């Protein structure tokens, strides 16, 4: 059994390490520091931490000003409120102004759990992906989160980082390289490609195992950077397997599934099935229950793969 760690844990720790090494790192939160674990940074570097209060638009604007003055701000809030309310501030004060601001959306996907639909960010990737100049990173687990924080700091320009709240299995390895914009092949296979993002890597790997027992060889690719998307890796696997299933803890509209379909329809048109939350709001429930509710599970990836393979087989 893989170890269970909350991605926000890795995030909070990585931020402290970053603060240790780099004086220009500043952290802002919108009255959710305890939940977002930016309290760790605040504890060590109180002068470089700013609680802007419950005002997400002001949070993002203030971060933009700090970046104008040469700081590297990490602006934290719940992903739904941050990307929903402060979209225009990200558009004008951050991206159009090309300011080096790191936007960190917390409580990602189903990890908002029992808070229910208002708090379940299922559209944030879609929104962030549409902004020119925005880089969008969705790590698989706490370990990859740590690397993503480091990489985001060293990357010059606006970044959106998606952080989950609740413990999920650590499936990546300490020695795995992390390069922004570079997808990672986790398993070779020839019949179907499973392309996942975020915490869905775990279910993708399980699905590949299940398919193996049924005689189907699946390739698993983890896309932690949704923008810029690694078109080369996606085209490579699709031209090999000719069948693609995408998996994300997010709406099937505008997220990973859309990004992959965009690449493939223009470069390598093969059938694609998108697994994600359908065009609907969330409900209240434990994270596990929500993953079941939305069928963000290996069995759905397996059945999607079979549907694709059936489509191909001449009747």
């Amino acid at each position, binding site marked *: 059994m893989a170890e269970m760690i909350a991605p926000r844990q890795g995030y909070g720790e990585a931020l402290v390490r970053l603060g240790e090494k780099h004086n220009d790192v500043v952290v802002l939160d919108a009255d959710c520091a305890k939940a977002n674990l930016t309290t760790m940074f605040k504890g060590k570097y109180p002068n*470089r931490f*700013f609680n802007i*209060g419950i005002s997400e*638009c002001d949070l993002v*604007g203030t971060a*933009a*000003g700090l970046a*104008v003055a040469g700081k590297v701000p990490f602006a934290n809030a719940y992903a739904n409120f941050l990307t929903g309310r402060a979209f225009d501030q990200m558009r*004008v004060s951050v991206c159009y*102004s090309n300011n080096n601001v790191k936007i960190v959306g917390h409580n990602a996907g189903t990890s908002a759990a029992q808070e229910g639909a208002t708090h379940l960010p299922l559209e944030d990737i879609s929104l962030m992906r549409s902004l020119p100049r925005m880089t969008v990173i969705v790590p698989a687990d706490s370990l990859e989160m740590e690397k993503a924080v480091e990489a985001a700091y060293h990357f010059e320009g606006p970044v959106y980082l998606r952080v989950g709240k609740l413990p999920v299995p650590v499936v990546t390895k300490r020695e795995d390289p992390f390069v922004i914009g570079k997808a990672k092949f986790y398993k070779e296979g020839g019949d179907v490609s499973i392309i996942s993002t975020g915490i869905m890597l775990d279910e993708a790997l399980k699905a590949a195992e299940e398919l193996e027992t049924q005689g189907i060889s699946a390739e698993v690719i983890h896309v932690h950077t949704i923008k810029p998307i690694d078109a080369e890796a996606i085209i490579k696997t699709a031209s090999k397997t000719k069948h693609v299933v995408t998996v994300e803890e997010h709406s099937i509209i505008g997220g990973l599934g859309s990004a992959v379909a965009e690449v493939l329809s223009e470069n390598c048109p093969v059938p694609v099935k998108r697994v994600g939350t359908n065009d609907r709001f969330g409900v209240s429930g434990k994270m596990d229950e929500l993953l079941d509710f939305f069928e963000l599970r290996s069995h759905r990836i397996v059945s999607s793969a079979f549907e694709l393979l059936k489509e191909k087989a001449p009747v």
Partner: protein
Amino acid sequence: MTITVEKNAYLKDLTKKIRRHIVKMTHHAGSGHPGGSLSATELLTVLFNEHMRVDPKNPDWNDRDCFFLSKGHCTPVYYSVLAEKGFFPVEELMTFRDVDGRLHGHPCGEHIPGVDISSGSLGQGLSVGNGVALAAKLDGSERRSYVMIGDGELQEGQVWEAAMTTAHYNLDNVCAIIDWNKIQLDDFVENVKGVKNLGDKFRSFGWHVIEIDGHDLEQVDEAYREAERTKGRPTAILAHTVKGKGISFMEDTHEWHGLAPNDEQLEIALKELE
């Protein structure tokens, strides 16, 4: 008297020059915002020429003061003041809003020397100004940030989120300039959604408030000095102005908020500005 007679004459002349640019630029483009540019002319001219620590030869100088035009539509006055200050050639003003130029309808922070942020979506400037001011406090720097906000723009909630932040962090290196011309896009501000008792509003948010005639060069200059002297809290300069100031037919009407003069109107305007 804070400014000498000679200086006053020089600045007066400069504001006239800038008003001529404003009408010529909007005429050139066939669009743009003369009303709120003409009301802000003295405020920006005095700020850039007498108070801001900036270096047109080195616009990205680390310790410079920053200005953010939160009411980003008023590029005619902003670009004119920057050009006259030497940030880019005055001739370039006649490329205003041209597709192959960089002087876009609303300012782009990336491309224009002297412009530190893109704006045009109202309500965002004060937050950005606060960010620079926080960084300055952190670095022990003397740099100041100035933010110009329209009175209609005060209807945007983010302005008040930011006003709380400025006061909470005691950012006495922030100076907000409210171009209180009483008119927004559609109508008089009081008819759309009034912003009455503005002084009380800012005072109750923890700000030092200075109320002036925004077309009186002396008063404008003294207000910036008082802002610089004020310690422990931010300053809001509430500047009573006239929208369209200086051109008889543009004054005190919403009609000229976002309208360019035609050939004939340009001629009359330039005559009035001789």
